[in-house]
C-alpha cells in the first residue's frame, strides 16, 4: 500500500496500531455488518421458499438466460474496477477515468436489466403484494439494487472529483480502494443471490 507516512494531522490521517488505515478498517466492519443484513434477507427468502399459496412461482417468471447475462455484466464491472484501480496506482489518470466510467456504466446496465426484469415480472402478475415469493423476492433483490445504485453514485462522484485539481492521484488510491471494496462485496452478494434464488429456484434438486 503506497501510503506515504502522512503527518499526524489528527483524526482521520493518523498512523495506526495495525498499519491498516482507519477508513479501510471502517469499510471492513461495515461489510461485516452488511453480510448480516443480506444474510437476514436471504434467510427470510429461504424460509418462505415454496410457501406461496398462489402463483406466479419462481419457475413461472425467472428467465435464467437473461439473468445470466446481467450477472455476467456485473462480474465484468468488477474486472473493470480492478483495471481502474491498477491504472490509478500506475498514475495513468486517463485510463483510470475510462475504467471508472466503464464500471459505472456496467453497473447501470445491470440496474437496467433489473428494471426490465421487474417490469416483466409485474406483467406476469407478480408484484410485491401478490404472494410470499413476490414479497421476499422484490425486497431482497430491491435492496441489492439499492446497493448497486449507491455504488454507481459513488463511482460517478469519484469520476467528477477526478476532474478537480488534485482530485485523483496515485497517493489517493485509497479513495478508490474503498469504493472498490464495496463494489466487489455487492458483486459477491449478487453471486449468492443468483445461485440461491435463481438457479436453485428453477432447477429443483440442484
Amino acid at each position, binding site marked *: 500500500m503506497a501510503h506515504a507516512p502522512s503527518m*499526524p494531522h489528527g*483524526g482521520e490521517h493518523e498512523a*495506526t496500531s495495525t498499519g491498516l488505515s482507519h477508513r479501510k478498517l471502517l469499510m471492513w466492519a461495515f461489510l461485516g*455488518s452488511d453480510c448480516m443484513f443480506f*444474510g437476514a434477507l436471504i434467510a427470510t427468502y429461504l424460509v418462505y421458499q415454496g410457501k406461496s399459496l398462489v402463483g406466479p412461482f419462481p419457475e413461472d417468471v425467472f428467465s435464467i438466460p437473461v439473468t445470466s447475462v446481467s450477472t455476467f455484466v456485473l462480474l465484468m464491472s468488477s474486472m473493470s474496477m480492478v483495471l481502474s484501480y491498477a491504472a490509478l496506482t500506475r498514475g495513468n489518470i486517463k485510463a483510470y477515468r475510462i475504467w471508472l466510467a466503464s464500471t459505472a456504466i456496467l453497473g447501470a446496465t445491470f440496474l437496467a436489466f433489473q428494471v426490465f426484469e421487474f417490469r416483466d415480472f409485474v406483467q406476469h402478475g407478480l408484484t*410485491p403484494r401478490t404472494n410470499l415469493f413476490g*414479497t421476499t423476492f422484490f425486497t431482497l433483490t430491491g435492496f441489492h439494487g439499492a446497493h448497486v445504485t449507491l455504488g454507481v453514485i459513488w463511482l460517478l*462522484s469519484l469520476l467528477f472529483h477526478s476532474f478537480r485539481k488534485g482530485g485523483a492521484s496515485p497517493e489517493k488510491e485509497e479513495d478508490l480502494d474503498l469504493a472498490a471494496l464495496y463494489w466487489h462485496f455487492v458483486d459477491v452478494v449478487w453471486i449468492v443471490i443468483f445461485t440461491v434464488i435463481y438457479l436453485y429456484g428453477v432447477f429443483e434438486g440442484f
Partner: protein
Amino acid sequence: MSTMPFAIPRPVHPTGVWSWITTIDHKRIGILYGVTAFILFLTGGMEALLIRAQLAQAEQDLISPEIFNQLFTMHGTTMIFLAVMPLSAAFFNFVVPLQIGARDVAFPRLNAFSFWTFLAGALLLKISWITGGAPNAGWFSYAPLTGITANPGHGIDLWVVSLQVLGVASLAAAFNFIVTIVNMRAPGMSLMRMPMFTWMTLLTAILLVLAFPVITVALIELMFDRTFGMNFFNVAAGAQPILWQHLFWVFGHPEVYILILPAMGIVSDVLPAFSKKPLFGYGTMVVAGVVIAFMGWMVWSHHMFTVGLGPVANSVFTFTTMMIAVPTGIKVFNWLGTIWGGSLNFKTPMLFALGFVGMFIMGGISGVMHAVAASDAQQQDTYFIVAHLHYVLFGGSLMGIFAGIYFWYPKMTGKMYNEGLGKVQFWSMLIAQNITFFPMHFTGLDGMPRRIYTYQENMGWEFWSLISTIGSLMLAASMLLFVYNFVNSWRNGEKASGDPWDARTLEWSMPSPPPEYNFAVIPEVTDRDEWWEEKQRRRIGVPVPVSGGSGYEPEEHSIHLPQPSYWPIVVSIGLLIAGYGVVYNGVIYNFVLAAAGVLIGMIGVYAWALEPVNDPDPDDEHSSH
C-alpha cells in the same frame, strides 16, 4: 487548498450553544450522550411510575387499557434504546480514547453524527405521545399484533422508524469504536494490556455491528407490510409470524449483552481501583467476555420456549443457555477474587460496583431458572420474568452505569460529588430496587401475567403489587437525590485532582477535566494498569519518560485536533425529517417532507466528504492535504 463547499465557513465557536452543536470532541460528545440519555431515562422512569400507580391496587381505572399498553411499550423501548445503550455510549465516548492513550476517536465527525442521530431517533419515538398514540405492542412488538389491520395507528410506524434511525446511530458509533480501539492504541498498548472497560466496549461494538442489521431487516419487513401491503407477516398469504420472533431475538439476545457488557467493563475497572489490587484473572476475564459475546448468538430461542419449537430445539437452547452462565460465573468469581484481601475503600463507585455484583447474581440465578424450558413454561409472560429482567437490567446494567457515573464524575466535570449524598443515594437505590422488583418474583410465581392493565381482587397479588409500587416511588426519590447531587456538585463541588481515587488506568494520568488534546505527549505503554505502574516507578525514582498529560506543557503548534463541523448535525436533521416523513405514507405533504429530508442528508454527506478534517495550518509548510 481549501475545498470548502457552498462557501460556508467552518464553525469557530469556542463556547456557548454553537460550540456544543458543532463539537466533535469525544469528551463533549460523551457528556452530551450522558445528559441526554439521563433525561430520557427519567422519562422512561415516569412511564414506569404510571404503570406502578395503575397496578398499586386491584381493579383500578387510573389509566385506560390502551394507554397502559402504550406505557409499557414505551417504558421498555425507552429504557433499552434511549437510556441504557446511550448511557453506555457516553462512557465509550468519554473514557475509551483516554484509556487507550488517544487524542480522539478515529472518526470525530462520525461520532458527532452518531449522537445527533441518536437524538433524532429519540425524538421520533417520544413524539408519538403527542401525535396520536404511542406504540402499543410491547418492546418486542410481536407480529401479527403489529400488522396494519390489528394496529392501524401510527404509533407502530413511529416505533419502526425511530428504531431504524437509532440503529443508524448505534452502527455508526460501533464502527467508530471498533476502529478506534483496534487502530488508535498508544504505542505498547497491546490488546492484552487494554483496560477491561475498553475490552468490553470493543466486544459490545462488535455485537452491535452484527446484531443491528438483523433487526433492521425485521423492521424493514414490518414497515413494508404496513406501508406497501406486503406479506412478510400476513398469515392469509401463508406467512409465519414466528419469523418476526426469530429475527427479533437473533438481534434481541445479543442486545442483552450489548446492555450488560459495558456495565461489566465499568465494574471491572472500579473494583481494582478501590481494592488497590490488579484485576484478578485478567486473561480469563477477557476470554469470558469473548465467550459471552460469541455464545450470545446461540441462545435466542430461549425467549420462545413456549411457542412450540419442539423438544429438540427447546433442549438445545436450554443447554446453550445454561452454558452461558459459565463465563458469566467466571466473571463473578474474578470480581470476588479482585476484592479478596484487597485494601478496600468503600467510596460510592465501589458501593455501586459491589451492588452490581450482588444484584446481577440474583438476576443471573433467576435467569438460569428459566433457562430450563420446562420451568420457563410456568414463568413465561409472568411477573417472574419482569423480576428477572429488572434484576439484570436495573440491578445489573444501571448499577454498573451508576458506578461509572460516580467513578468518572470527577474526571468529566473536574469537581467532586458529595460523598455523603452519594452513599445515601446508593443505599436508597439498592433498598428501593429490591422492594420494587423482589416481590415480582412472588406475584410472578403466583401466576400474575405481565402486560395486564389491571387484575381482580382475591388473586393474592394486591399486597406485593402495592409493595412494588411503594418501592418504585422510593426509586424515584433516589433518582431525584442523584440529580441534585450531580447538578449541585457540578456547580459548587470541590475541585477534583487528576487522580482522586489513586486509580490505575491512563485516564487518571491527566488533569480533571482533561485538556482538549487529552495527552500532551502520547504515552508509551509498558504495563497493564499503566498509570498505576507509572506511579510506582515515579515513587521509587526510576528515571523514565513521563507518560500521560500532567507535567508536560503542551507544544500547542504540534497538536492538530480535528476541527468542529456543521455537517454531522445537518445529516442527522435530514434523517429526522425523512424519518418523520415516511411515517405518514400516502400524504403528499409527507412525501415532500421525506424527499426534503433525503436531500438535506445528501447535501450534508457531500459537504462532509469534501470538507477536510483539518483546515491546512497556515504556519505549516508541510501541509499537503
